[in-house]
């Protein structure tokens, strides 16, 4: 670290000639210049500041205020203190149902997406011919999977007269309306989410390509088999990426909406079996027009996601290996 201070720097002609010189206009003090610089900086920051204030911060603050009100969209909000929060936890059976449905969805979706995406990434990392084509093919569902069109397609595929039942029929198995059955509806939605593993896969693939081949060669010479190489080399070295993908998937899964909305016609059925938290929030806000109640739900979701993410970061110290430590 340099020990030169400003006076030293200015005292050295050699240094001055080697570095860009800041020209101070006559008649302007350093502080005036600093102010001018700041103004320019703020000017450049203005679009971002306007965005974060008008599109994020103010609506969030408004939502926080509305969560303590009875606000039916039409009419003015009326302050009711903690009533919405109390009612959610004590008098709303569907709220509790939506939490369980969401936890089930997250509990299955996140590990399955991680497993699928990692498995496919490992397979693709073996230097297959046409890798770019496979990579694109596997990635496409993650681009379109959350769309309404795919939700509708899924509904047809798993419907009473859908492709899945046609295939089962070839083997003499009687199908059913998977999407319309409370036992199978949520697994069908989870399957749709797992199908969109492409984004995680691409990230895993990038991480796998960073692992030096020499590590595997050395391990092979020492007699390590394929599983041992994967377990002792691959997994620890991509642990930060597993962590990154897990956090992303966790946050996304908690907020999942479109697929359940489309396959259940916005109702979260049958019998609330696909009533994800965001879908119930939507129902309260835009079907029953209880915007205050929905705002309280949104803040509970934000806090829940914050806690889940914090827990992930806390746990990472025990299983995530960073090369610089």
């Amino acid at each position: 670290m340099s020990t030169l201070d400003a006076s030293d720097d200015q005292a050295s002609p050699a240094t001055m000639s080697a570095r860009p010189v800041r020209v101070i206009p006559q008649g302007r003090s350093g502080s005036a210049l600093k102010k001018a610089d700041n103004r320019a900086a703020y000017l450049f920051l203005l679009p971002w500041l306007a965005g974060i204030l008008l599109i994020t911060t103010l609506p969030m603050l408004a939502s926080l205020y509305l969560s303590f009100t009875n606000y039916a969209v039409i009419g003015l909000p009326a302050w009711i203190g903690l009533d919405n929060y109390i009612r959610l936890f004590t008098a709303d059976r569907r709220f509790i149902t939506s939490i369980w449905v969401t936890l089930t969805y997250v509990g299955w979706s996140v590990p399955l997406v991680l497993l699928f995406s990692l498995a496919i990434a490992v397979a693709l990392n073996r230097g297959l011919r046409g890798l770019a084509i496979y990579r694109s093919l596997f990635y496409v569902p993650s681009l379109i999977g959350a769309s309404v069109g795919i939700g509708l397609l899924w509904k047809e595929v798993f419907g009473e007269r859908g492709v899945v039942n046609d295939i089962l029929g070839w083997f003499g198995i009687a199908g059913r309306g998977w999407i319309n059955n409370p036992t199978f509806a949520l697994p069908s939605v989870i399957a749709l989410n797992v199908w969109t593993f492409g984004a995680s896969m691409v990230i895993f693939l990038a991480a796998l390509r960073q692992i030096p081949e020499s590590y595997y060669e050395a391990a092979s010479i020492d007699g390590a088999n394929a599983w041992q190489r994967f377990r002792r080399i691959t997994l620890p070295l991509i642990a930060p990426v597993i962590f990154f993908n897990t956090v992303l998937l966790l946050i996304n899964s908690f907020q999942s909406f479109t697929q359940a909305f489309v396959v259940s016609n916005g109702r979260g059925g049958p019998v609330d079996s696909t009533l994800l938290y965001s879908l119930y929030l939507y129902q309260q806000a835009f079907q029953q027009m209880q915007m205050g109640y929905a705002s309280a739900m949104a803040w509970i979701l934000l806090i829940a996601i914050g806690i889940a993410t914090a827990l992930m970061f806390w746990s990472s110290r025990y299983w995530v290996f960073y090369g610089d430590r």
Partner: protein
Amino acid sequence: MQVQFRAAPTRRSFLSGTAIALALAGTAAPIAAQDLAGEIRFSWWGGQVRNDKTDQIIQLFEQQNPGVRVVRENADFAPYWERLTIQSTGNNQPCAITMQSRWLATYARPDILLPLDDLVADGTLDVSGIPETVLNAGRGADGNLYMIPHGVFYFALMYNEQMLENAVANGVEPIEWPYTWDEYANHLRAVQPTLPEGAVATHNMGREPDAFIPWVQSHGEQVFDGSQVAFSRETAVAWFNYWETLRNEGVTESPEEMISENSALVEESNLANGRGYATNRPPNQLGSVQTVTNTVNPGATINIRPYPVGPDGTVGMDLGSNGIAIGANCAAEQLPIATAWINFWTQDTEAAGIYESDNGVVAIPDLATAQAEDPDTQPTQVRHIELYQQVVDTAKPVFWPAGGYQAMTDTLNRAYDAVAFGQLTPEQGADQLMSELQQQLSQASR
């Protein structure tokens, strides 16, 4: 009754409109010519056929009022109300708003919709020919008139004529209205063995408010009393048992298919595809159901008949109305256009002829009769109007509280689904229905 179908007319006859106009001379007050200029927004819900008809009527209105432009805003039914609510919050609702009696209570406030009584009293709005009972369907809980009804809708059962004829040929007794719910169930049981393999005698209506309401009212009970649930637990339990019995006997679909059928497009429906004998759909869809059936199941004829009556012969049919309201934010200079537009829509015979009772039977009875007698009117529409005229006098319009229709649909769907999938008994289902419906109504009226 057998409906005879013929090819659709190749022209939407202006001549017949004129004939109707002549027939109605003296019943519909002439609309004073005005020098209107300016622009209003007009919103409605519906599919492409209705959009086309509405567009034609707007063009006609604009031709007659060259200084006027009507901005079209249309949407499907469910998003239509979501959008209107958001627009109302921002005081950005259209000047002329298509409104429905089932949803009126949510918006019937002077800060959202303009009270229309004064405009009716001074003759600005022409309501001549609209029956008082129909007009009153446009009133809010505060007694103000907020909507001028232009169409009256009702609910009925649809069935496949050929399947019935086949059943009768196999010894099944035809039924004539009025039949009780039990008699109707027995009819379905008798028809079932005569149907093709895989077909069911009826769609399972256990989760559908349009069928539940006639059940409740035909058993002598009200659906709502203000914003309170007014039907009894016994009536709800009996309703669930009615459909569970039919389901267990194989007369109706599996719960999975029931849900699928409930939201199915006409093209996918069991009725149109010959997989079902009877179902419930709004009678104003008879024409489109027949058109689709002609394509996917040629030779089949679809007809409509009323819901069953109660054990003592009580009719439980609900009636609703669709009409036009004026946004409270409508500017003073736009108001003459909005009122002229409403008068044109409700009173002009040519406009009524174009619309052909597309969203409810035209509210003015003479216009309805003229449409039914017009040789250019589609036979399905004639049947739609005839059945309405047959049952209208005994119908009992439900007053829907704010949020009531949404709440009833949501809670009845979930309660009966839980019963059908064996998660709740009919008694538990009824308890859940009543408690959650009341909870949502109370929430909406807070």
